[in-house]
């Protein structure tokens, strides 16, 4: 009996009889004439990221390194976030006085749902489309951590911001090859399902604050 696998592969090969035997996948030319390397000065790249990220109704503020703890404290206070979940490897200087910091060492879904918010870093951010990528690396935690709490405060360091999508994808390549799961975030959760009008706040965090450290 042929297996489904063998049969599908046989069907594919029969369907592709017109493809010359000696042709390889790489022989099919793919012109990459789109922008692959940014041209803006880095300060403008960071500013463009802030602008495009805010365009999704994320709240973006820019601070210098010294101002980061203050900005975190201020944002959490403004949101009334007292019990805050964090990845276990969140830098000590981000854990400011005030909130109760709850390290994620296997918190249950219910426990994650019950916190007021979550603070993480990120892997890379892309200016052109205002996105933030998390790949489970340093200060990011697992995916559920940034999904279940209703409020996400994400710290983006200026050197993590690239201008273009291809630059962002390239930076994530190593994690991809390591098989690490990723989330790319563009603003708080939203839907366009009612009359194609965008409404923020469905299942994911309804509020996204971004602090860019320049």
């Amino acid at each position, binding site marked *: 009996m042929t297996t489904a696998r063998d049969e599908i592969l046989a069907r594919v090969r029969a369907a592709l009889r017109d493809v010359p035997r000696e042709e390889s996948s790489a022989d099919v030319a793919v012109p990459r004439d*789109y922008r692959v390397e940014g041209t803006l000065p880095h300060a403008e790249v960071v500013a463009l990221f802030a602008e495009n990220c805010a365009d999704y109704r994320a709240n973006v503020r820019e601070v210098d390194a010294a101002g980061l703890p203050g900005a975190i404290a201020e944002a959490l206070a403004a949101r009334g976030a007292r019990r805050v979940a964090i990845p276990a490897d969140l830098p000590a200087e981000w854990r400011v006085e005030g909130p109760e910091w709850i390290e994620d060492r296997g918190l249950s879904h219910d426990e994650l749902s019950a916190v007021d918010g979550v603070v993480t870093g990120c892997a890379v951010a892309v200016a052109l489309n205002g996105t933030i990528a998390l790949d489970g690396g340093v200060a990011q935690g697992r995916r559920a951590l940034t999904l279940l709490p209703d409020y996400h405060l994400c710290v983006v360091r200026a050197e993590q911001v690239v201008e273009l999508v291809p630059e962002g994808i390239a930076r994530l390549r190593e994690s991809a090859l390591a098989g690490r799961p990723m989330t790319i975030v*563009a603003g708080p959760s939203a839907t366009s399902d009612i009359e194609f009008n965008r409404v923020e706040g469905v*299942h994911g965090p309804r509020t996204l604050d971004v602090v860019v450290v320049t």
Partner: protein
Amino acid sequence: MTTSASWPDVPAFPLAAKAALGDAQMRRNIGMATSTIREKRAGVVAEMPDWEALREAGRALKERTLRHLDEHLLTLEASVTRAGGVVHWARDGDEANAIVTRIAREKGVQEVVKVKSMATVEIELNEALEAAGITALETDLAELIVQLGRDRPSHILVPAIHRNRAEIRDIFRRTIGPETLSDEPAELAEAARRFLRERFLRAKVGVSGANFAVAETGAIAVLESEGNGRMCTTLPETLITVCGIEKLVPTWQDLEVFLQLLPRSSTAERMNPYTTLWSGAREDDGPREFHLVLLDNGRTDSLADELARQTLACIRCSACLNVCPVYERTGGHAYGSVYPGPIGAILTPQLAGMRAAGSLPFASSLCGACYEVCPVKIDIPTVLVHLRDRSNRERAAASLRGRLDPERLALKAVAKGFATRGRYERLQKLGRLGQWPVARKGTITRLPGELGGWTAARDLMPIPDQTFREWWVERERTSPRATRPASPATPPSTPGAGA
């Protein structure tokens, strides 16, 4: 019964379209929604100076994938397996449904949570699970609206596009409450959030489709907006993904093209709110068990047609639906197919066969707007014409009635008449003699008998007293080369039908 992309209870497109055109509310809803999204898309595409280069790269990448699909499928299988996932192969919808049902049964669940997936609608997975006593809960807002309203999807991206906010409010009031719900989109979204939250937290099995599957790394990509996709692919202990075999891209780098093309073409955003990418299964993050079901269900039939193969490049953005003048007027249900609009008109007949969906390639004016917006440059008009020919040939081959179809015979005669100059000119002369009973005041508004179908929606120009060809011949004869004026003589005012 084999499941297919075509709905057997919906009549052929011309009949279904006629009924749909009478639904003024639906037409208003679709008209509003598509004009909103068309404008937004134009805006986010215009800000990309390299849009055309991205389209060309997207087209070429899909060509590369499809021409060597066997190789890429094997690479994907190896990558997913290496990452701790289990790969299944399904020849058709029934086989895929059986695999998913078996896994869900093994887990002993009564309910699975689902993130919107066209492939699973195509194979009617929800119905198959239902038959096995398992509820498949749709979690995408529009899909939930369709499910709760016991309705069918009418759009690839926004299945409930035919419903306006007041209708959605009524469906929610009837089903998930509360009675006092208003028609504010934010409040409707909140109602869905409350209804689904507990279910996400308790779900043991999640089911998804795939926007892209990266052969090189085994990564599956799901692009979404609401966070329901993240919930379904992250929280359950077991995740099952049904993925059409054409969803592959060869390398990680290739995502740099599609992650730009898809959001701007579909929801008309620079990027959709959430994109989840995972490879296989892990102990420390997300589901501990991952099953990938690779689905054929007619795709290899499409692959075998050299010209129509490009249909499989589709990334399901739905830009072609939003610009299509036919879709805008008939809505999605008239197509009688999971995939409506221009892409449905070429995809469904190939997946489900001409017998089931042979009228769809004719559901187009061939205006070409779909080709212009397609992010992977599928030449939909050319494929439509090609499939019209296939549809006619297959119909003729299938039965005597098909061979004796009056339209077919008439067009065959026309083709003979157009084949040589002599025949064409003799036909014109004959036509001029024969047309007097039907030509009135310079137009033919109604042809007799079986030919009447042609004039039901259009007028014809009669053959004029002097055709362009006759005028030209006479001009050549009466104005000798030496004395011909610099500007040509005035041609007759009606150059002649078909001349």
